[in-house]
């Protein structure tokens, strides 16, 4: 129904529409953005579900991501292999979560994973230090960084285990309506 496109089968498009927050047109537009990163690697026919992965360097060079200090973590969190190399599914997933239609709890979940540098499901002190350095471009001295991290853990850690769990983080996000 509608436009005749041969990239996806209708069932594939329906599945994408159900699983992301995008409409058909947006999904097709995102596919073209993905393909523009490496036209020789990405085929125009996805009906047989080809297994194509784009390396992190190409993803990180996209204009939306190239200035974001967390782009490497974002790519790692959303990629299947954890190294930043993304398939089309991961790509759509990433933009779906970052779009304005995604609810805040979903974004909070992924933000937690982005800030969790060592992937242990907790934001511990070293994760926080790396976050602070990325947020401030290494302009603070190490003592200031440590002090700031201690303050954060003091305030947000509800169950007093010295690190932030997902619940602590979500609890904090609810009280911060500026979180995007």
């Amino acid at each position, binding site marked *: *129904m*509608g436009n005749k496109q041969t990239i996806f089968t209708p069932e594939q498009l329906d*599945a994408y*529409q*159900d*699983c*992301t*927050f995008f*409409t*058909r*047109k947006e999904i097709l537009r995102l596919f073209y953005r993905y393909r523009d990163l490496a036209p020789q690697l990405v085929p125009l026919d996805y009906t047989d579900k080809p297994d194509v992965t784009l390396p992190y360097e190409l993803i990180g060079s996209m*204009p*939306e991501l*190239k*200035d*974001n*200090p*967390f782009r490497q973590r974002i790519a790692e969190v959303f990629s*299947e292999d954890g190294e930043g190399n993304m398939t089309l*599914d*991961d790509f*759509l*997933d990433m933009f*779906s979560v*970052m779009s304005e239609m995604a*609810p805040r*709890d*979903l974004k909070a*979940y*992924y*933000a937690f994973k982005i800030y969790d540098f060592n992937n242990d499901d907790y934001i511990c002190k070293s994760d*926080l230090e790396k*976050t*602070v350095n990325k*947020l*401030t*471009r290494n*302009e*603070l001295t190490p003592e*200031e960084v440590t*002090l*700031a991290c201690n*303050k*954060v853990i003091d*305030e*947000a850690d*509800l*169950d*007093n*285990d010295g690190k932030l769990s997902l619940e602590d*983080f979500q609890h*904090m*996000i*609810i*009280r*911060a*309506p*500026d*979180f*995007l």
Partner: protein
Amino acid sequence: FFEEAKLIGSLVSMSTRERIKAIQKMPETMKKKREIRNKVLKEITEKSRRHRNQCDCCAQCLQRVAVSYRRFRNTLSEYFHLLQLWQKTLKVIGGEFGTGVLSYFIFLKWLLTFNIFSFLINFSFITIPQFVAATPNNLSFMGLELLTGAGYFQETVLYYGFYTNATIRKTEKGASYNMQLAYIFTVGIYFVICLLSLVFSMAKSFRRNFINPQMYSGQASKLLCTWDFNITNEKAVKLKQKNLSTQIKEALFEVNREVLNFSLKERFVHIVIHLAAWVASLGTAVAACAGVYFLSIHNLELFMNEHKNDLENQAAMLVLPIVASLLNAFIPFFYSWLGLLEKFQNPRHQIYVTITRNIILKISIVGILCYYWLNIVSASESHCWETLVGQDIYRLVLVDFIFCLLGCLFGEFVRRIIGTTVCVNLGMPEFDIARNVLDLIYAQTLTWIGIFFSPLLPGIQMITFSIVFYVKKVSLMMNCQPPRKVWRAAQMTTLFIFLLFFPSFVGVLSVIGVTVWRLKPSKECGPFRGLSSMYAAISAWVEILKNYSGSKWVVWIYQNFFESALFFFILSTILLIITYLYWQIIEGRKTMVKLLREQIMNVGKDKMFLLEKLRGLPTARQNLSVP
């Protein structure tokens, strides 16, 4: 695996729309979501196959219809997205300047929709019927009318005075259109819709952004929640990082030094300075109002004494709007300077105090003008006082628009040139969000007051707002740098919506209420000529309705709900009781939240205690087993 089966079971039992929403919200990878979705769909088709014995083709048909309906709705929503104005522009602005500046443009777009809606319904229900019964216009058109709104425009549909009070009939026995009722009901229904829309926006915004204001200024939220992932411009990113590092350094510095205990004398001096600043600001506001009042009385004398079509006279009519706009443009600078003098301890307080003073100034100017219009102009012996008021408002709106453009030119363009060439340490100007939003609120207040006296004014405001949007956007891109201070966009937007509702919209409702209920309409012009009050049109209509047996219920509703005071008394009591009940529920929930937090802390402590014990166990066991 068991959890997955439970999840699939719960998804199968939901309706299609809820299921799609639930799948979209799941924090899993796309692959997993697709698997779950396929499993759920398989389950659903199996279930429907089991039920197929009853009605084979019916169920299949229904399913197909449902699927194609959903596809149709999806395509429709895609086209609806095209209608959204300026989406790309807003994204670009948000990307370069952050959400603070973006909130100003979103607010402007929201006010524009109010004006578009008002213009559409006024034009269709009031102006188009008037074109059918129009009287010819004998005045000539000179160029100055565009600015002053008088002259040729006086006898057009622009103003209240032109509208007929007759019941318009196309043919003798055909359908009739009662202009008086149409006028009152169109304006009334528009204001009711505005009221509901404002109240709902305010409630939604308040609930999202003010859930728990304690713990707000915590450093944790500053660190982890203020990174604006919307920003895509490299310069803006660097600036934001620099700001964050400065803020963290300031916060740490505050923590490191002891909280200074101000001595009694210093506190006293601070209070005296604050009081003096408040007295100065309120004094300036009162002086501005007095100036506007005397100028407008002088204006009225000028208008009554001389003949209307003199060019010099018409130019003299522009003095009042120019003075009002000058006051609105320059007194806020004085207030900002006062704010700097006062040396607030909390920069948030400075912003709030400055906004309060500006709002007091703007609302008092509008208030004094309304007082002048409602008490003095309506009692004067002019031919058509409502048209006079309409013309005044038209001029105010237009001159305010011109000053806005000039302010953009001088405040941002010239300031940038000065800041980059002559006096380099000033740098590029920042976009002053609070001031611009308050200007918008002022313009919208004037428009709302003007809707009754000049039904096509929202159309003019529509055009001005669109031009302001483009001018501000171009000026922003060319001249401004991203804001340096933290601007809590969500909280400030709630505050601005509240300011739009409370002094602005409620004031407009009172002015229109007084006009409709208390004031005597002019005898020779407008839809209510000759009546004792504009409301009398409705009472007269209800009297007529009494004679028709079919509409007795309307008469009954009118008599028992709108005319009786008992009804309003009972309504207010019920509302007060409900408010009190909700307040008690909130208090109860607050205590529960506190208790639950303590519980979480205790659980954490228990966990640590048990972990310690567990660590001590193997050594204890070793001691036991090895004799």
